[in-house]
């Protein structure tokens, strides 16, 4: 995928190894957690920060992700699936979304 949609596959792949930052959360102490994703479950991301391993829930949070030279902003609700299911479900979401041509 080129141009505008480059990196759109982010919601259809696992996030282990990606650099993420929590930018919005109902829990204020979670905002600003930044680091590399070392593990992922259906509902949580395990982020290795400078202060150690942090477990952050996906639902209700917004993440900033560095991916393919771009900084993406993504709501955790969109990735609230098991990593192995995300390829199927993420692609389905992209296909159903209006204005996205993949």
């Amino acid at each position: 995928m080129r141009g505008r949609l480059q990196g759109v596959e982010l919601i259809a792949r696992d996030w282990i190894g990606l650099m993420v930052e929590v930018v919005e959360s109902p829990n204020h102490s979670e905002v600003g957690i930044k680091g590399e994703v070392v593990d992922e479950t259906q509902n949580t991301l395990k982020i290795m920060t400078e202060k150690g391993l942090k477990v952050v829930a996906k639902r209700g949070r917004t993440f900033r992700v560095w991916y393919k030279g771009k900084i993406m902003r993504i709501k955790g609700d969109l990735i609230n699936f098991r990593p192995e299911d995300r390829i199927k479900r993420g692609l389905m979401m992209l296909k159903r979304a209006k204005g996205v041509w993949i």
Partner: protein
Amino acid sequence: MYDFLRFFPENLPDLGFKSYVFMLEKPKGCGIVIRANSPEELRKKLRGVKRRAIVGIIGKEAVCREAVMRRRVDVILDWEDRELDYATLKLAAEKDVAIELSLSKFLRTEGYKRMHLFERLRQEIMVIRKFDVPFIVTTAAENQYELRTRKQVETFFKFFGAEIPKARLYAQRLVRRYFDENYIMDGFEVEQLSNSGVV
């Protein structure tokens, strides 16, 4: 707040809108209007739409019901004899197709017919609120005499129970979907290009 117009004005006065979307049948506006008399005609015309633009549909009840199930359709445009039943509105909420509520049809009609339009609007808004259907409030002006200010449009539909902040959000989303480079889908957008070499 965006206004959706059906004509291309030469000089537009400041009416309080952020910007305008020109829904035209000729392919020069930022939106395309498709008129169809039957679902078959609609499908045929939709296949011909190649350009990235907001696609609006004008048609009768069967056409509207077919239109909400088409991925290429973004908005069901408003006109005097539009009929949307309960099932179509529910389906529009599921399929993320916006419903246009326009002011100009009330300006063009009078008397008994206008009263019926008020009644239909009230019922549509009730179902829209129930299923959280995407909707936009516009003037849908076909000439300069049907143009109204943003405040007039919003106050009119607010009186009938429409949630105006939501209508603004849906209109903005509709425009960003095609004309914002950084917007991908709801809750997913590009902030900027990264300077660091992080993968």
